[in-house]
């Protein structure tokens, strides 16, 4: 199963404070461990929300709001995707991560949906079909 590991933003990350060499090295070593253990599938760091934007939806209307956004703790500063056997294993790996920030910080662990997750609540396969259509649509839009 896969988990998305979300590194929550902090005042520093939102202010664009870059990690120093020591932290960078520690994070690199951690990433290396993840790669060597075969659990790291993907991962990236994100620029501060001041460089981002939001699109708000209301019925057919769309409105664009430029960053930065106020609720720092709810923002994401980076992510990994792990492939592991259990949530506990994901937790174990995250516990081994050096504190990615200079201040108090938080990392959130969220499971990624897989086809099998829908099997129980979707015995007829109807929802799965819809989901496939949705993916097909987003794919054709990306082209």
């Amino acid at each position, binding site marked *: 199963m896969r988990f998305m590991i979300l590194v929550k933003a902090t005042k520093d990350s939102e202010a664009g404070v870059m990690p120093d060499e020591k932290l960078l090295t520690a994070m690199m070593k951690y990433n290396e461990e993840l790669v060597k*253990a075969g659990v790291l*599938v993907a991962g990236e760091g994100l620029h501060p929300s001041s460089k981002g934007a939001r699109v708000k939806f209301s019925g057919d209307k769309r409105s664009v709001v430029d960053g930065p956004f106020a609720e720092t703790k709810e923002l994401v500063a980076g992510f990994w995707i792990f492939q592991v*056997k259990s949530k506990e294993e994901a937790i174990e790996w995250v516990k081994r991560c050096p504190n990615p920030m200079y201040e108090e910080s938080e990392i959130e662990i969220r499971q990624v949906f897989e*086809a099998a997750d829908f099997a129980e609540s979707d015995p007829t396969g109807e929802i799965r079909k819809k989901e496939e259509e949705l993916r097909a649509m987003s794919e054709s839009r990306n082209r």
Partner: protein
Amino acid sequence: MTAADAHRAIHAVWRIESARLIAGLARFVRDVGLAEELAQDALVAALERWPESGVPDNPGAWLMATAKHRAVDALRRGKLLERKHEEIVYQLEARQERATPELEAAIDENVGDDLLRLVLTACHPVLSTEARVALTLRLLGGLTTEEIARAFLVSEPTVAQRIVRAKRTLAEAHVPFEVPRGAELTARLASVLQVIYLIFNEGYSATAGDDWMRPELCEDALRLGRILAGLVPNEPEVHGLVALMEIQASRSRARVGPSGEPILLLEQKRSLWDRILIHRGLAALERAEALGGARGPYALQAAIAACHARARTAEETDWVRIAALYGVLAQVTPSPVVELNRAVALGMAFGPAAGLEVVDALTSEPALEGYHLLPSVRGDLLAKLERFNEAREEFERAASLTRNTRERELLLDRAAACVRKPSTQRQ
């Protein structure tokens, strides 16, 4: 922390640490079986202690320290003196006396080499293929006997026995815990790759049983492959195998329908293919080719898989290139199965008649007798040539040969579809 929580946490730690732990211990005691027993003992100790004390900050070092204490005790009690030398006790004690951070460093040091030694030992040619698979999943994958038994649909005692026998065989054959050099290393690595791909394939298209796929087993194999790629980064075929597995795994979501029926590659919804895994697969393939491994059997198969992965629709598939790649593969590793796949590619690239010609030459091949994909492919080509009566017979034959329930249903459906097209039937 409740006992159940602690057990789950310990299991997770075990998944992460067991391979390094066993590998590190094996370096000291020079016996993989004994190393595993010591590691298991440490696990039992953790199960006793951690629910009360909590999981320590560095669980790996805790397990290693505990296992080494036990090794020293066991050796002191003389139980193992027949097998081991006092020198090992001395070595262990010397390590033990150092402070914890140094102990950690001692574990980390050579850990890559230890793991490589462990995987090479687990896949040693003195063992049967089944034993290699079971031992690899157990020692490298951190799987329990029960999990291995479930994955391969055999009983738990059978797996347990296989593992016990394998460890005994290794000890009796005095298989050294080492990394061989040159040609021997290449040969041993080939055995490791074969075992990993076998595990992957068992998960990807189960040879027997009710489920078409066992995705957990695919994940285990992928993980083992990625670990191996980290251990021997300059071996092109390791990257070739990883590329092949990543690309194949990228399709898992698309190759099973809502009620568990298999969906053939060309009918799969490509939007369901996992872009991240495709990206990883293509990158691994590039690495294999950059290392000069473009003609390696796994890299070639990965290159074929990549042709499918790169095509945005089934129609865009570069069948001419696939047929050419199968041509090279047939030279590098000639086999009737490769030839059968080449026939499929030729059929797609140059028309069903071109494919059928190659398949017909294979019908007398003894190695393919009883192989359900031969009549299945032949049926497909015949159906495309609108020879539906013959096609139906072939699909029915294929259905009678497969041991997989889901696949049988699919083949019978195709046979039935041939009956529904009598109007275009040629005599």
